[in-house]
């Protein structure tokens, strides 16, 4: 059953669909039914631009282990970039 566990954050970046790149404005993170993955629930990432309509979406559905591994990988890569002095906010 749908969990309704979802949150949205504003983001800055670009995403690529089959027909090309578009500007991303929001990321939706949910733990709920996937559309394609074979699991009952997955960690779902939807990178979207709501102003462009529902079709402006890059979607990812991950099982829990993959989602946790991704979080760790992102954190590790950012830490390395930080340590190397590459991040200049």
């Amino acid at each position: 059953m749908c969990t309704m566990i979802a949150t949205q954050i504003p983001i800055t970046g670009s995403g690529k669909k089959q027909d090309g790149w578009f500007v991303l404005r929001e990321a939706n993170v949910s733990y709920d039914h996937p559309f394609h993955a074979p699991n009952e629930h997955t960690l779902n990432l939807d990178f979207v631009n709501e102003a462009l309509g529902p079709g402006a979406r890059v979607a990812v559905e991950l099982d829990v282990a993959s989602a946790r591994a991704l979080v760790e990988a992102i954190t590790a890569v950012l830490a390395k970039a930080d340590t190397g002095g590459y991040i200049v906010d």
Partner: protein
Amino acid sequence: MYETNQYEGIIAETVMIAGHNGDDINAYFARPLGPGPHPAIVVIHHMPGWDLWYREVTHKFAHHGYLALSPNLYYRDGHGTPEDVAAKVRAGGGVADNQVVGDVAGALRVLRNHPTSNGKVAVFGTCSGARHAYLSACQLPGFAGIIDCWGGRIVMNEQELSVKQPVAPVDYTATLSCPVLGIFGDEDFNPTPDHVNALEAALKAHGKSYEFHRYPEAGHGFFYYDRPAYRQAQAMDGWQKIFAFLDRTVRI
């Protein structure tokens, strides 16, 4: 029972109906040809949206002789593929309960007033659609039966309540005005067997007519032939239970 020399015909099309607050929404309407009178059913789609499975099920009911109307509960959220629209709704925490009940009321009105209707209308839903079906059957007079297929969050704890879903549907059970058919998988995580027990206890406490079927070795969504959760034997038996229930409640 169908025989091969029998005439059959249905029409299926997208129509506009008046939903909550009189808003225009679209709906998929499949119905038998011929003068009727036909029994009817509102088909409420699940969280993954107004998708192919739901259009096929709407067709299936029409094939079995029902005026079947499936409102697009996500109409206000824009248009695109059903998945993209459903993903947008998912990110927003779903649709508001009162809006859904208003949209279902609109579908009920269309079916009761249709010139080929026998005036008897059931409501069917799976997953969140079953939750919405239960909510609607409690809040709207006029349904002759409700089919709850693995509706989760009918029984909710305080932490699950939100602005959009402020009351657990089970708490409206006192005002439920029609018999319930419940189809559940014992391996489902929501509703769990304990959730189903709690719903059954509420129906019993309020003296409501209900019939529950709980299937072993089946989990959530075991009718969905396009998902690994599909369980052929349990699904076929479940469909038989559904059509037997409809025979008793709306095909009369």
